[in-house]
């Protein structure tokens, strides 16, 4: 059993994250097609349709989470999507192809280069999957008061800031690694 407040915070945070991710992929569609192509996991013909499909799935799942309708089905789908991303990154990292864009950049365009793959990104996705599992657990019955809603809003702001901070640190880490790593 999990407190309904924690459950709601996670659900809303995941919903917002999915919507923002979908919006970024649709806004920079050409970049996302190129990134997806770089992963070299999809047959050539299917890259463009999949590049359409992924953000649409993300947006739909995000709306379900926001509306509080994400029960086991949507949670399972979100978990599988995140696991697929993690697996795609892990496969390319194992092949030593860290030098491709991850296609997951927030503000990646602003800093010029796309964030390259790293195991931190895989870890991030595993943490997100853990959040999905927690949010999907049945929550206890408790009526939320005004103070709970305030906590909810503040927690969302704090999570969003920490998430951006962590992403920025990953980009910095990648920039430092790029100086050290000999270009093969």
């Amino acid at each position, binding site marked *: 059993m999990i407190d309904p407040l924690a459950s709601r915070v996670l659900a809303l945070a995941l919903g917002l994250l999915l919507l923002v991710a979908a919006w970024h992929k649709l806004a920079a569609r050409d970049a996302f097609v190129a990134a997806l192509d770089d992963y070299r996991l999809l047959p050539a013909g299917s890259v463009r349709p999949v590049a359409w499909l992924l953000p649409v799935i993300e947006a739909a799942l995000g709306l379900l989470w926001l509306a509080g309708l994400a029960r086991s089905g949507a949670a399972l789908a979100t978990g599988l999507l995140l696991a697929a991303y993690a697996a795609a990154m892990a496969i390319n990292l194992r092949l030593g192809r860290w030098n491709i864009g991850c296609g997951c950049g927030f503000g990646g365009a602003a800093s010029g280069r796309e964030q390259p793959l790293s195991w931190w990104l895989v870890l991030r996705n595993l943490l997100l999957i853990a959040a999905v599992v927690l949010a999907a657990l049945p929550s206890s019955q408790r009526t939320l008061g005004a103070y709970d809603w305030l906590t909810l809003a503040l927690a969302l702001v*704090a999570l969003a*800031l920490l998430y951006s901070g962590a992403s920025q640190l990953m980009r910095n880490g990648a*920039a430092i690694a790029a100086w050290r790593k000999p270009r093969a």
Partner: protein
Amino acid sequence: MPDALLISNAVLWCVVIVLALVVLALARQVGVLHERVAPAGALMPTSGPKVGERTQPATLRALAGTDITVGGVSPDRRATLVLWISPTCPLCRGLVPTAVSMARAEGLRLVFASDGDSLEQHQAYVRDLGIEEFPYVVSQAFGISHAVSKLPFAILVDADGVLRSKGLVNTREHLESLVLSMESGVRSLQEYVGLAERQDEASLRGQHP
């Protein structure tokens, strides 16, 4: 009591959010710094012996009275770092301890060189810096043969007597760039950047035929 808890909780939330903002801002600043501050290498003049050329062994009289040889195949298989300094160069004073610690860490033979001034001034300078254990050469011809025009200047000659890097060095980063240049076989930062860009273009062409 419940009021106090509520207030303390609200205050803590504010602190958490402000701290998260600060962390984000710091991380972004570090990111911007990485974009702006490209790594700097030693300034390499085009005159004088070229990097990659075999140097002729030169026998020089050190301040202590011993003869030392710079250039040619080194008998103890160590690379030689020659650093030109002068009692009248303020930057040199700061760079000497750096050069000493770097030579120890990298296992280099360190030779100081200088010219001009009186021998007494050079001897006082050596005592002042505490570098009596390293050969200190006072020779105008040696400086001219390597086209040394501005100080502090350094060259790195590998164990086979090949000039591996040279340049005007102002900071530890510049000095390290000489050693890095020898180890990597890339002569200068400009060459490295050019190499990296060509590789980027090549890999782009490879991925999108």
